């Protein structure tokens, strides 16, 4: 009896599968099945009111490519992702330095830094919607009282400031994640290297650019790619703050897919738009995996 139990426990392959099974089921059910459904829907005439399936070939893709808003959304997605990624990495690195530093009240700073990441995205974005309100914005109120502006900026009413707002809120939201990832990389740098550089007379900036950043570059790359992928597929910030406006200036592929597929009712075309994210995301995933492998090789 006990010998049989020991036998099962000894089988590495069996145990590995048992341990992995919940994750595999989770990924298949919540990622694999919806993805395959999206592929199927993209070639169908399914609507929100009519789930019956009729194959329409590439008709949805042709219609989507003929739509100027799709190309605008694609450009917005790239701009939104690119700018957010750069800002997330820069601020993530700065915050990571704060997180590893030793000073009085460190726990409070760490708590405040991580807060945006732990708050549900819809809730935190609604807070920003209030902060950037055209009439009651506390941001504008503060700037007015500091004498920096005469009247409210109306952040979400102008195409340029609306896009800027969406990028900054996304940066605010994802920077803590990048900071935690980069912090892990910084902690892993042997202290003697930094100390040797100090003894050789290297100042803060020189150590930063010639020691710390080169050694933590693979981790920074991982943080950047995580940020990019999470931004590329995100629609919450844009949807809650501007609903894609003004005049589609902040519509991204994910939000436009939602508008067409769910609110507009044309699930087929919505799925075709959403599927356009896939090849770019695939490239992102490959890049992440390569970066991780490079990190493991070090």
């Amino acid at each position, binding site marked *: 009896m006990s010998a049989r139990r020991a036998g099962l426990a000894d089988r590495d392959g069996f145990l590995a599968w048992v341990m992995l099974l919940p994750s595999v089921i989770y990924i298949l059910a919540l990622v694999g099945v919806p993805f395959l459904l999206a592929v199927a829907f993209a070639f169908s005439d399914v609507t*929100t009111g009519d789930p019956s399936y009729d194959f329409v070939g590439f008709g949805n893709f042709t219609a989507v490519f003929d739509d100027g808003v799709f190309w605008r959304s694609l450009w917005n997605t790239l701009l939104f992702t690119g700018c957010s990624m750069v800002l997330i990495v820069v601020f993530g690195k700065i915050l990571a330095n704060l997180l590893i530093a030793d000073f009085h009240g460190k726990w409070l700073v760490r708590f405040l830094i991580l807060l945006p990441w732990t708050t549900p995205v819809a809730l935190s974005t609604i807070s920003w919607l209030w902060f950037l309100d*055209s*009439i009651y914005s506390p941001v504008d109120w503060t700037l007015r009282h500091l004498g920096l502006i005469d009247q409210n900026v109306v952040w979400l009413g102008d195409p340029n400031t609306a896009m800027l707002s969406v990028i900054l809120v996304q940066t605010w939201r994802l920077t803590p994640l990048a900071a935690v990832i980069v912090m892990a990389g910084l902690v892993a740098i042997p202290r003697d290297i930094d100390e040797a550089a100090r003894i050789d007379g290297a100042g803060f900036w020189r150590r930063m650019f010639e020691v710390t950043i080169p050694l933590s570059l693979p981790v920074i790359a991982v943080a950047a790619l995580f940020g990019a992928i999470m931004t590329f597929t995100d629609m919450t910030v844009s949807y809650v703050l501007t609903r894609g406006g003004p005049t589609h200036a902040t519509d991204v592929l994910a939000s436009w897919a939602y508008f067409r597929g769910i609110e507009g*009712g*044309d699930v087929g075309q919505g799925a075709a738009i959403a599927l356009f994210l896939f090849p770019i995301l695939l490239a992102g995933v490959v890049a992440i995996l390569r970066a991780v492998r490079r990190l493991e090789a070090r």
Partner: protein
Amino acid sequence: MVGTGDDRLSRRGFLTATALSAGAYGLAAGCASESSGPQAKNTGKAPQEVFTAPTRKLGGSLSVLMWSHFVPRHDKWFDKFAADWGKRVGVNVRVDHINTVDVPRRAASEIQARQGHDVIQHIAPFSQYEPAVLDMTDLVQEATRRWGQQLELCRRSSYNPNTRRFYAYCPGWSPDPGDYRKSMWQKVGLPNGPGSWDELLRGATEIKRTTGVPCGLGLSPETDSNMAARALLWSFGASEQDRDERVVLNSEEAVAAVEYMTRLWKQAETDEVFSWVPASNNQALIAGKSSYILNSISAWRTAMGTNPKIGDDIFFVPALRGPKAAMAAQHVIQQWIVPKHAANADAAKEFLLHYTANFPAVTYHSELYDLPGWPSLVPQLNGWLDDDPYGAKPANKLALLKGAASWSANIGYPGPSNPAIGEIFNTNVLPTMFGRAARGQLTAKQAVAEAEQRVNAIFRSWRARGLVGG
């Protein structure tokens, strides 16, 4: 030592964080919940409710999914009304209220899953669900037999002439008058508010020039901006489709309407109309940051409860006269659908008849927000509009709504509210058209041509499914 210090800090931090969180939650709850604010006081007597025994034996349970009404008093009344009916006919009724913007996505998921509520109510056209819902023709015929002619705008918002099916049941609606601050318009010589689009441009420009307070017609991807866009198009003689569901958007009249909106925005508005959500124009009017908006009466009712001085300064005008007509879109159109997956369709239909029969109570408890789709149902309506039971000052402030059906139209007018019109509405084609021209991104002519291209693509897509004519 350090550890001890950290521990002490953590405890204090915990207490502070807890207190801050509790305070923030209280603040958020207070801000977010419209129902927590004071309401208009009623001085009249609620109408007697009627009960007609169902034509068939009912049983089981009935689940209803509907919006959280803009007038909180309505939901309190409705929930008890539905439960009381259930007790009398032996049906266990459950009513789920959710935010109106969440209703379409919830309905979509239930219909895709082929399970969920027996009845779903929404306040905008639901025509895209036709293949998945029961035909309501029998119910409409019965209601028409009992209460006479249904309002045309309600019929057009629930009937598909191509399939000859009532995909929804529409017993009520709400108009979309112009709301203006009398004290502001008095100073520009229009104490009764603007009567035409020309007067709106002239008066609103003058108010903005002298006081800095802008006009509040939205150009944002949201419901009220969509309503305003349609009112403007129709009043200038343009529309998205004709009576036979052929796309006719690209016209000189549409270009003229877009040129007008460009002038209005440049002379009398600011960037903020591009950033609005549905509640923004209400807030702006009540805050004294807008001289005129297009909306229902709910913003004013809220102001009556929260700030009577401002409430008393808000007045209404009917649809503004344009070069060709004086038309406004309906603000809310009741759409009750019974999905094919409904487990208790008989009870659903009987309940809807009972609800309709009690429309005087619906109108009364919604503080005159919901008007009847079968006008004969509420003979008291004109009396209430002349002498508001909730204390309007003056008492006949809402008297203009007596003729609201004559200047209101369904989304999609002069054609029906078909799924193509629904998609055009929900993907904000028209506010974008007006907005692109106003911002100078395109000329008026180019903006109309661009919008027409999108409208044509949407119509083609739905025509292929057999749900749209033309």
